[in-house]
């Protein structure tokens, strides 16, 4: 047995390994499927039920989709880091001496994957339950909006999830930190979705301005996260 350190591993491989691990655990434990989805579905149904009025429903449809996504974000982030801290695996990751910005991207991509799966279900149920019509141009806008908003949420969720993981009692900080930061995403995504849905006579074109904001947000937290994640998670 040679005792030289193994060669350093490329960033891409670490990203893939972390991503696969997170997805594999989700497939085993089914937290998103069994726990978050019914949760999010309930919001949609209850509102359809509470506001039995097509006009109002169509107006709130966009907001509801993103509100439900945001809640799910909290739960998924918390769960995703709870898995790593449960048996001290986070410590092992830190001691592995790997590039923590790769861990950041791996976890963020896994988080985004879960969020997108969720959003697809939510948007479809909004279309069905609230009788929303989406035009072809609206669809393009919607898809762009989902992609931009989700990457922003995934980046910021992973970043602050890392900050609040680890020491006991710290996890209670997560909502406090995350709330004010994701609020703009919520607003921008809601407005863009409303434009795509044509709620309240909104034009599709109005939506694209919001996409810009979402893209800036995603870029800021993508770069910021990959730089800062290491020093936040790591003490």
């Amino acid at each position, binding site marked *: 047995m040679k005792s030289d350190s193994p060669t350093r591993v490329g960033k891409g491989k670490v990203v893939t390994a972390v991503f696969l691990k997170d997805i594999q655990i989700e497939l085993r434990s089914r937290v998103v499927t069994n726990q978050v989805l019914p949760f999010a579905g309930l919001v949609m149904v209850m509102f359809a039920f509470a506001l039995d009025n097509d006009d109002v429903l169509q107006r709130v449809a966009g907001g509801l989709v993103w509100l439900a996504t945001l809640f799910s974000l909290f739960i998924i982030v918390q769960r995703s880091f709870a898995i790593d801290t449960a048996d001290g695996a986070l410590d092992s990751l830190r001691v592995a001496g790997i590039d923590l910005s790769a861990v950041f991207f791996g976890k963020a991509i896994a988080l985004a994957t879960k969020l997108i799966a969720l959003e697809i279900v939510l948007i479809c149920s909004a279309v069905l339950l609230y009788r929303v019509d989406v035009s072809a141009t609206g669809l393009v806008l919607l898809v762009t909006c989902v992609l931009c908003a989700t990457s922003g949420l995934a980046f910021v969720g992973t970043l602050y999830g890392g900050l609040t993981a680890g020491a006991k009692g710290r996890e209670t*900080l997560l909502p406090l*930190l995350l709330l004010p*930061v994701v*609020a*703009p995403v919520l607003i921008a995504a809601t407005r863009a979705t409303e434009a795509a849905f044509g709620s309240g006579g909104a034009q599709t074109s109005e939506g694209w301005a919001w996409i810009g904001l979402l893209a800036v947000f995603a870029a800021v*937290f993508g770069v910021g996260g990959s730089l*800062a994640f290491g*020093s936040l998670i790591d*003490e």
Partner: protein
Amino acid sequence: MSQVLQRTSPTGTRTTKVIGALALLVMAWVVVSGLILTPQDVVQGESVRIMYVHVPSAWIAYLAFIFTAVASASWLISKKHSMGFDRFAGASAEVGVMFMAITLITGSLWGRLTWGEFWQWDPRLTTTAFLFVTYVGYLAVRRLEGSVEQRARRSAVVAMLAVLEIPLVHFSVVLWRSLHQGATVLNPNGDVKMDDLMLFTLFSGVVGFTLVFVWLVLHRQRTMLLVDIANRQGLDAAIAARQTESLVK
């Protein structure tokens, strides 16, 4: 170490005394001018006088948060990681949160007088509230357990991300259709539509609040230093106590 403590015990210095006196002076002028000398507004009546507190406190809060970010960046970049930067960042954020609270309170009161409501779900108001919450979160991060270096590193990252919210608050009136006053003073066109004395009083307010800010930050940063020193002395005692465990057993 205790000598240091004694020597530095009073947090004031000659500079802070001068700044404090100046701040008092300017604020006295703002009170006189704001409440008596300036005319009432055509539309808003007497309630316009809230502006002399509301607007400066908002701007000084911005200023405080920007200082926090700059100090945090300096800490991260500097080779020596001087703790002074970190203490300055923390002190500035604390004072900034206080000023932001003043903005929120005076704004609500003003809203009650002009809109009839304490609170509206208006973009400027909402984003301001979020900015406030963000920095409360920043202060919470500073209180997490860990060493001073950990505190500095964590909070520096948060501060540099949080400061990006300021443009969002400032431009929220443009981004969203807003009930709130648009950029009257700092408007992009540069033409100010305001009575000269009102404008002068407003800027006196800004100067006065800046002086108050500087005075508070200097003192606060000083007390933080003293707390750190006291903690270090507490640690000396704790180390001594811990070492005796080895003798007992």
